[in-house]
């Protein structure tokens, strides 16, 4: 009862009820099951306009730019869309980037993120139809939807079924739960432990002062000094 609560948790009444308008204003997240997705729609054509005006300067006209962030589009194929797994993520493939469309399994993620955080310098300024549209445009750049497509709350679940990497995610519980066990195994050997003799990798010469002169990143007293990395490395 309230009385019992007031005694055992006398702080129970601190704060106040949220109003429906307040919850509506802030409850913007969209989940993989599309809970939270507002009704609406937007065409690839509308999306292209939004993209060119508000996104392309950072992400490139075809979502391919590497300037401010890894490319959004690229690296996926029709076969990937069929299978729901991106071949370029598999071993042996040499596609140079891991683009957003190669990785993302859930279309909701993109809707949610564009809506909450893009454009990067003016987040939360897009209208709902603009979010639908620009997402449609991105999906179209990835050949997931056709050029005349209009994305909406009605058909988004269908689009989900064409996400190139929709089957690419594994939930590995041991790294989610504190009680889980690690997958890599070492033993606490103390004496004459098995090791390879040689150094397998060393700092490349070009990396020696790529972070500036390390001498100037260490204290002027103490048991050590920073090495003067403007000079060549020791033999």
């Amino acid at each position, binding site marked *: 009862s309230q009385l019992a609560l007031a005694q055992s948790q006398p702080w129970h009444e601190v704060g106040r009820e*949220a109003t429906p308008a307040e919850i509506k204003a802030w409850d913007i997240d969209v989940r993989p099951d599309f809970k939270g997705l507002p009704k609406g729609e937007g065409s690839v054509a509308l999306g292209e306009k939004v993209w060119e005006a508000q996104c392309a300067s950072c992400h490139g006209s075809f979502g391919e730019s590497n300037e401010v962030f890894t490319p959004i589009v690229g690296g996926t194929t029709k076969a990937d869309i069929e299978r729901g797994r991106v071949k370029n993520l598999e071993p042996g493939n040499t596609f140079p980037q891991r683009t957003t469309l190669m990785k993302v399994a859930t279309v909701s*993620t993109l809707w949610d993120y564009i809506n909450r955080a893009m454009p990067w310098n003016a987040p939360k300024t897009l209208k709902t139809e603009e979010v639908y549209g620009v997402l449609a445009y991105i999906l179209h750049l990835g050949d997931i939807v056709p050029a005349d497509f209009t994305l909406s709350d009605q058909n988004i679940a269908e689009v989900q079924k064409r996400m190139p990497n929709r089957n690419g995610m594994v939930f590995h519980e041991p790294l989610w739960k504190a009680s889980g066990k690690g997958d890599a195994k070492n033993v606490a050997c103390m004496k004459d432990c098995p*090791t390879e003799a040689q150094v397998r990798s060393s700092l490349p010469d070009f990396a020696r002062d*790529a972070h500036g002169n390390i001498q100037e990143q260490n204290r002027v007293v103490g048991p050590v000094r920073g090495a003067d990395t403007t000079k060549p490395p020791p033999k």
Partner: protein
Amino acid sequence: MGAGAVAAGHASRALASEGEGDPAILKMPEHTRGLGRPVAENPYGQPSKWEANLQRRQSPGLTRVPQASVSFTPLQGLFGMITPSGLHFERHHQGWWDIDPSQHRLMVHGLVKRSRVFTMDDLMRLPSVSRIHFIECGANSAPEWGNVALPTVQYTHGMVSCSEFTGVRLSTLLEMCGVDKKLGKFVLAEGADGSSMTRTIDMERAMEDCIVAWAMNGEMLRPENGYPLRLVVPGIQGVSWVKYLRRLEVGDQKWASKDEAVHYIDLMPDGTHRQYTGIQECKSVITTPSGGQMLLDKGYYNVSGLAWSGRGSIKRVDVSVDGGRNWRTARLEGPVLDKALTRFNIDWVWDGQPAILQSRAIDSTGYVQPKINQLRAVRGTRSIYHQNAIQSWKVAENGEVSNVQVY
């Protein structure tokens, strides 16, 4: 990089006296013969000007824009377990803000009996706890899954910090709101900044040791670390410690937010990604001596480093000076706390020969920090996150220490 660096080569070391003695002793310095500066000249104090070399720094080329970037903690020059707040690493996705706390709100809603709004006044009235915990970015040490890439421990490990946090337990808030303990399996935490970072927390953990914190190391959070409110998720990667926390929603499913579905996912050798891998597993690193440093001399050194585990406390740290063939157990500096950095120290006499230094931590679950090849055997080299391998530092004959991989 901002503040001017102080240049001083190791040649400046004043070890021995000449003739009568050391001029630094025989000639009285100004500060022994004069009147110093007044109290409260700095109402908020600063480090010595001689410490200017130790600062947060970016890693050139790592990111493309400085508002979606990282600055690293200079672990090579730090001591003990507490990270000075001025040197706490930064990771922003859409820049940082100095938010007016009187206008900040926290909303709790979703699968709760009563949705609630809290002002900072409200929150800071609630029963509070203070706990010392580490926070580590999931991408700490990421560039070295494959080969050695970075010169110093600031860049290899400098996305970890440890502070005392004060706030209200998340469980207290959820209970106040009448959380649905049957259906409510997850909590979404959301920030108030442009990125409005969203992360899924599982209910078990939410009820256990998460804190909705306003203070860090005795004062309010710094703006770069989420002033005025941040979620503390002990043991879990930093991205879940949502800054500028404004909303908590209780739900029955995970959210697959951008930073749970496009980043902070671990690419496995078979091309699948592990999703929701939050735990920062047991890890350690020697900070003195470490990459880019010069030993001044042969002889005795106190080898010092840090160890931590997202699954509990540090049970033991072993140190090798021969690249992992033989190990000795280091001293742990107390208090050894749950999900907190633990400072270790061990004696070493350097004979002037090349040496390879490693540390290996064991946590309270018995887990032994792996070698990089053991990690790779399971996860390959492309999984970016949760790289907790043993770090090797090579000491050359001239005393210079450099980053290597040996296993």
